């Protein structure tokens, strides 16, 4: 290839606060239009914004988790433009002196060395409302404005143009998505627009120092579409240049149906946003203590936790990866380990029985009817020899259904493992007597039938016989 693509991403992360960024209205999704509004988010005359501290805390956490420095004195600015979903005629955002600056993320693409992607800045801003077209309740056809979403807190995360391929872009996005959901500051729902992305794409001849003219692709709402949109756009620009054309600076819209991007507005049509510091909000001063407090509150990030699972808990890489699939799953696992002690055993159960039961019942881990301490209790019964590993699975199913403790279930169903030699010997004797032919076969050297005897004994004891005791006694008896 003769061309080098250059990609930068701007990601909007909707923050999971209970209330909006500049007023006390709820941020709940899906309420009756305009039911979650007040003079501030309606942009009524005389109304003034008051910053939600939670938003600042979330922004600091996002910044610390992406290796940014936290700006000691950051400023809110007004971005001025007219649109019906923008009640004040300006959006309160940050321009100069955003809250987080100069960060980076490590990304991994298969077959490549890990790569550092720069983060230029992260800033806080308010979302706009939503236009509703079509039939409106009570007023026939037309366009309406729903301002429930107006003033919802967003973080905009702007990367450096360090990405070179669509795979790198997707990897970066997934990494960022993982971090903000892991931090619990965003629900990560891309369909509802809680995590959305604009991509700046340009190409330049390989070896060139000068970046090509970029196109900005708006609102690409899934990892798949990001990949598609970027790949289409790279090819479009290359084709254009090859055909002797020039790329113009413009905003383009991705159409998921056709997989293409199309022009939305050119640079000449772009707004002059006339940014200036918002005089209604005082500069946001964040001292070192505040930053340190946030750092203390930071949950361990997935990368670090995964490594710790390998180094300290002795898990294989595969287990550590699976268990770090989400913060709640990893939390569940660690709580189980804390209550039981054997990390590998707990890992097997969490990745095996627990995951299967969750999938079968369509439940997520935070609503598991079996708590980590109950799981540990069950595993301890196996450790003590009270029940067999096989019985444990039966007990687990019962725990899942009834919510009872493993002890109670074992008691209730008489599932205590039989380790009493004389009782097992009795069963063995009976079975050997009833299957004299197989006994002869074994003694004639056909050791395979051993398994048959084990199965028969276990069946006769309804699975309660201690398998190791059964094995030992059987060997002795069969060998005569």
């Amino acid at each position: 290839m003769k061309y080098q693509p250059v990609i930068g991403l701007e990601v909007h992360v909707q923050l999971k606060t209970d209330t909006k960024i500049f007023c006390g209205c709820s941020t709940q999704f899906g309420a009756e239009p305009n039911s979650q509004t007040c003079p501030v988010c309606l942009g009524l005359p005389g109304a003034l914004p008051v910053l939600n501290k939670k938003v600042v805390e979330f922004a600091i956490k996002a910044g610390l988790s992406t290796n940014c420095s936290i700006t000691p004195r950051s400023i809110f600015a007004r971005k001025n433009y007219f649109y019906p979903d923008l009640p004040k005629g300006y959006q309160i955002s940050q321009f100069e002196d955003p809250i987080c600056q100069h960060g980076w993320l490590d990304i991994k693409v298969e077959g490549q060395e890990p790569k550092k992607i720069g983060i230029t800045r992260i800033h806080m801003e308010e979302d706009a409302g939503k236009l509703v077209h079509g039939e409106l309740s009570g007023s026939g056809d037309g366009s309406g404005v729903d301002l429930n979403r107006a003033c919802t807190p967003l973080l905009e995360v702007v990367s450096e143009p360090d990405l070179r391929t669509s795979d790198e872009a997707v990897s970066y996005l997934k990494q960022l998505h993982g971090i903000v959901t892991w931090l619990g500051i965003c629900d990560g729902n891309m369909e509802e627009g809680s995590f959305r992305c604009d991509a700046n794409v340009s190409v330049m001849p390989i070896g060139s120092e000068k970046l090509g003219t970029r196109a900005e692709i708006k609102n690409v709402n899934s990892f798949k579409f990001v990949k598609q949109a970027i790949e289409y756009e790279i090819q479009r620009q290359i084709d254009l240049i090859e055909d002797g054309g020039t790329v113009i600076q413009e905003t383009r819209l991705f159409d998921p149906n056709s997989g293409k991007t199309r022009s939305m507005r050119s640079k000449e049509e772009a707004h002059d946003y006339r940014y200036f510091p918002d005089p209604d909000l005082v500069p946001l001063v964040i001292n070192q203590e505040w930053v340190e407090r946030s750092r203390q509150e930071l949950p361990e990030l997935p990368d670090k936790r995964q490594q710790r699972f390998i180094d300290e808990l002795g898990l294989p890489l595969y287990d550590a990866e699976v268990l770090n699939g989400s913060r709640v799953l990893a939390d569940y696992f660690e709580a189980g380990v804390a209550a039981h002690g054997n990390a590998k055993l707990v890992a097997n159960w969490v990745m095996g029985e627990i995951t299967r039961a969750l999938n079968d019942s369509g439940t997520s881990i935070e609503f598991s009817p079996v708590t980590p301490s109950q799981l540990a209790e069950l595993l301890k019964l196996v450790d003590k020899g009270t029940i067999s590993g096989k019985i444990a699975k039966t007990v687990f199913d019962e725990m899942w259904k009834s919510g009872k403790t493993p002890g109670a279930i074992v008691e209730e169903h008489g599932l205590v493992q039989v380790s009493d030699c004389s009782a097992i010997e009795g069963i063995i004797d009976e079975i050997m007597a009833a299957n004299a032919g197989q006994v002869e076969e074994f003694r004639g050297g056909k050791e395979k039938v051993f398994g048959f005897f084990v199965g028969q004994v276990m069946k006769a004891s309804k699975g309660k016989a201690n398998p190791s005791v059964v094995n030992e006694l059987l060997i002795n008896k069969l060998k005569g």
Partner: protein
Amino acid sequence: MRLAALIISFLCQKSLNKVRDTSNMNIIEMTIHELHSALKSKKLSSLEATIAILERIKAVEPKVSSFITVTPEQALASAKNADEQIASGHCNLLTGIPLAIKDIFLTEGIRTTCGSRILENFIPPYSATSWEKLRDRGAVLLGKLNQDEFAMGSSNECSAYGVTRNPWDTTCIPGGSSGGSAAAVAAGEAIATLGTDTGGSIRQPASHCGCVGLKPTYGRVSRYGVIAYASSLDQVGPMTRDVADCAAILDAIAGYDPKDSTSVNMPVPDYSASLKEGVKGLKIGLPKEYFIDGLDPDVQKTMTEAIETYRRLGAEFIDISLPHTDYAVATYYLIATAEASSNLARYDGVRFGHRAEAGNLLEMYTKSRSEGFGTEVKRRIMLGTYALSSGYYDAYYVKAQKVRTLIMNDFIKVFNDVDVMLTPVAPTPAFKIGEKINDPLQMYLSDIFTIPVNLAGTCAMSLPAGFSANGLPIGLQLIGKPFDEETILRAGYAFEQATEWHTRKASI
């Protein structure tokens, strides 16, 4: 006006005391303190006082036009309510006092126009914090006062609801933008009023109408529910008949408001308590940039006499300099208009206010705003938009902010040496209606002595100090240190005790 019928219906309710003949009490000229003692001693009821003032409004409004909206029903109902409070022994200083407020303050359920056509039918769903504080102390609202549209103007000629006239000479402007607030006090149409001051909008009309007007330090009084003109400069303040009343209103409205991030969370002193401590040894600065050659001779004479009065009272005078004064007007017209261009973007016809018939969105925006805004507002929106535009931002807005810092530093430096500053409020007494309306620059220059105070963010007061040869009031300005309203109120009170200017009444 249905006023007579309304008053009669109120008087017919048998729960009321019989209305006495109050014609000898001169209610319309009372101060808050005078009316309060009459209410407390039951010589008067709030209803009687309210009725007397509503009748006065009815009588003089055709000549003065201080009001955009009079609210007699609400006023009579609140007065009745206040009388019940007083009867049950709850009578604080503002209980039952009939007040009026500039139409820039949002009043729940009462039309609020801000002097603009674009808000002609706007009924707010909530009230401004400063008005709520007065209302909660039992004040009676008479109505909403005329002003320059969106507080942009120095003469009240920019109101969409007609010009307010100066009660001392109805061919003259009352000043602006709180012209209605000043004229109402001077014409006996309210015991006291609230105004707002962005570049002199309280002090200049107070000076022209012979009343006391205080612009508190930025951050001292909440701006919540006050329609924004220039957010970093706007401040709410009282307009009254004397300094004691001014302190009383400030006592009620000052203080931190969690709904206004720019209001300052620091203790509020008792402004009324320290009024009488005198000015002996007070160091008063005379900034040379404010005593220019072009000063009107009557204003000059008034200042000279005021200085003499203070000397007699034991104050010391120090000649000082505020070297960046010359840049203040230009700086102001960049910062204020920049902020205004953004603050006024919300009047787009989408959610409230005037919406023009139009075929598409862009046309709806342009027509609604073209029809809704007046000439001066459009001029300032364009100026401000230009100052913030890409390519001009650094040269205009950023430069203006830097100069603003220099002006602030001038003040900080001077206040190391003096306690207050004494200056004229305006270069001339009230001018004629129509005299400057077609010369914006001349109009803008009428605020040269008041604008620097807003840029510096500090407090200042205008109080009556004399009259022109033509019988027009002339005020003097006392500028205080940030958050030191106490000292200018004390200095103003001392001056008032030593002079009689504030006792003169406009004969209208």
